[in-house]
């Protein structure tokens, strides 16, 4: 139980969380600015760099869970990060035609607010050892609105991107080949949409349980 390692861990996680927080803050700021000045069609272009960076950085969290640096189970971080990376790289970055859709705005704002609260919460706990109760409340309450808006935006964007996916033949692997294997990105997207059907209520229900536990625990303290 070397305390030098504990200090190092807290230092690293503080830096990580506050850096990614800054990234998402930029996303929100630039999104609102572009929305006001140019309209929803231009939101993606304004936020692309910090969005790609901040969202991709989240891959580190899988590593953190695997090596035991944080307590979150890999089984819950993996699908969450998976869907985010799919939308960010697999839909928005890959198919420019969808970038001007209004759902990009709702998506980016939902994600950004959620992540700003989440990363600053962890940043506070790692750096200062505590987080104020309103912060805890925000972390476990904003999802009640932002999950439905975020998930609807994700599903909507995948759906509206389908024609572009089909036409482009991107990421498709065709037969014949020695492995007798094929991959069709269009059908994979349909499968992804299908997963949202049981997946979303399951995730929402899970978060409701987490909320109950977290908020009642803080009352007891």
């Amino acid at each position: 139980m070397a305390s030098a390692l504990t200090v190092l861990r807290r230092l690293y996680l503080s830096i990580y969380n506050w850096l990614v927080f800054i990234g998402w803050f930029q996303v929100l700021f630039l999104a609102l600015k572009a929305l006001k000045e140019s309209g929803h069609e231009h939101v993606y272009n304004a936020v692309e760099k910090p969005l790609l960076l901040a969202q991709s950085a989240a891959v580190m969290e899988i590593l953190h869970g695997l090596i035991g640096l944080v307590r979150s189970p890999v089984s819950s971080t993996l699908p969450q990060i998976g869907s985010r990376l799919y939308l960010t790289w697999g839909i928005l970055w890959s198919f420019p035609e969808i970038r001007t859709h209004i759902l990009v705005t709702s998506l980016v704002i939902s994600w950004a607010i959620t992540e700003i609260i989440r990363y600053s919460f962890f940043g506070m706990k790692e750096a200062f050892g505590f987080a104020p109760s309103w912060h805890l409340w925000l972390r476990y309450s904003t999802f009640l609105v932002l999950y439905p808006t975020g998930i609807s935006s994700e599903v909507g964007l995948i759906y509206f991107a389908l024609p572009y996916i089909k036409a482009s033949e991107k990421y498709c692997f065709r037969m014949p080949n020695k492995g007798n294997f094929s991959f069709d990105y269009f059908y994979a997207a349909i499968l992804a949409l299908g997963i949202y059907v049981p997946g979303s209520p399951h995730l929402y229900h899970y978060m409701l349980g987490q909320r109950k536990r977290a908020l009642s625990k803080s009352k007891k303290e």
Partner: protein
Amino acid sequence: MKVTLVSRSGREFIKGGLELNDSATVADLQEAIHKRTKKFYPSRQRLTLPVPSGSRERPVILNYKKSLKDYCDGNENTLTIVFKDLGPQVSYRTLFFFEYLGPLILYPVFYYFPVYKYFGYEEKRVIHPVQTYALYYWCFHYFKRIMETFFIHRFSHATSPLSNVFRNCAYYWTFGSYIAYYVNHPLYTPVSDLQMKIGFGFGIVCQLANFYCHIILKNLRSPDGSGGYQIPRGFLFNIVTCANYTTEIYQWLGFNIATQTVAGYVFLVVATSIMTNWALAKHRRLKKLFDGKDGRPKYPRRWVILPPFL
């Protein structure tokens, strides 16, 4: 004797408890509960002795053959039993039958019917010999499994939760269709004749070995279905605990060598990991049960499932 039944939360499950003969067995208790509650037939009931709160021990499950007196400590004439509802149950035979029926029926659909038309391909013209042999091999495999389910296997539990029907059928039926789609595809590329023969030949040998393993396992248990565990001996069981899984895994390897599809290999990896989990649990259980103390034999040193790896 008076039996008090509580739920796991401590609440009294049957008001006033049940009055039973002093010589009554657990099976009699199960019948009485079923009679009183109508909904909870015996295979749905999980009856355990209460565990002191805070204790991390696993509760003792009542054996339906034993008499209730065996579970009373001292000469008390009362007994408190904890009840848990296992949910709707289905017999293992029913479960296995439906999960194996899917692959048996769905695979030939891809071989015989113009399915690929709906995926945008023209009517298939060329069928390679390996595709025909694969069909026979696959269907024989699942036919064998169904036969074994009804005539060979002796299950340690009579039933399985109903939810497993959906989960297991999804697994078998989805993977079955996934593999069938690729092996019977109009653009399928066959392997060399030699590779095909090696693959199927090896696979058939393993299937026969697997069948023999099942015979050996069957003879470890008595036909009245009382379950229980013995040390398996003979044939491959002398070197590996779960020789039945070993032969099953190698049998699928044979199929994949002959048919060479990514889908088939993915299935092999997933099936292997599932069986490895089971094998580890079984090996652990047998080692714990046969610890060499109190006259019990000691479980011999053996591979778990896949020599020389595990």
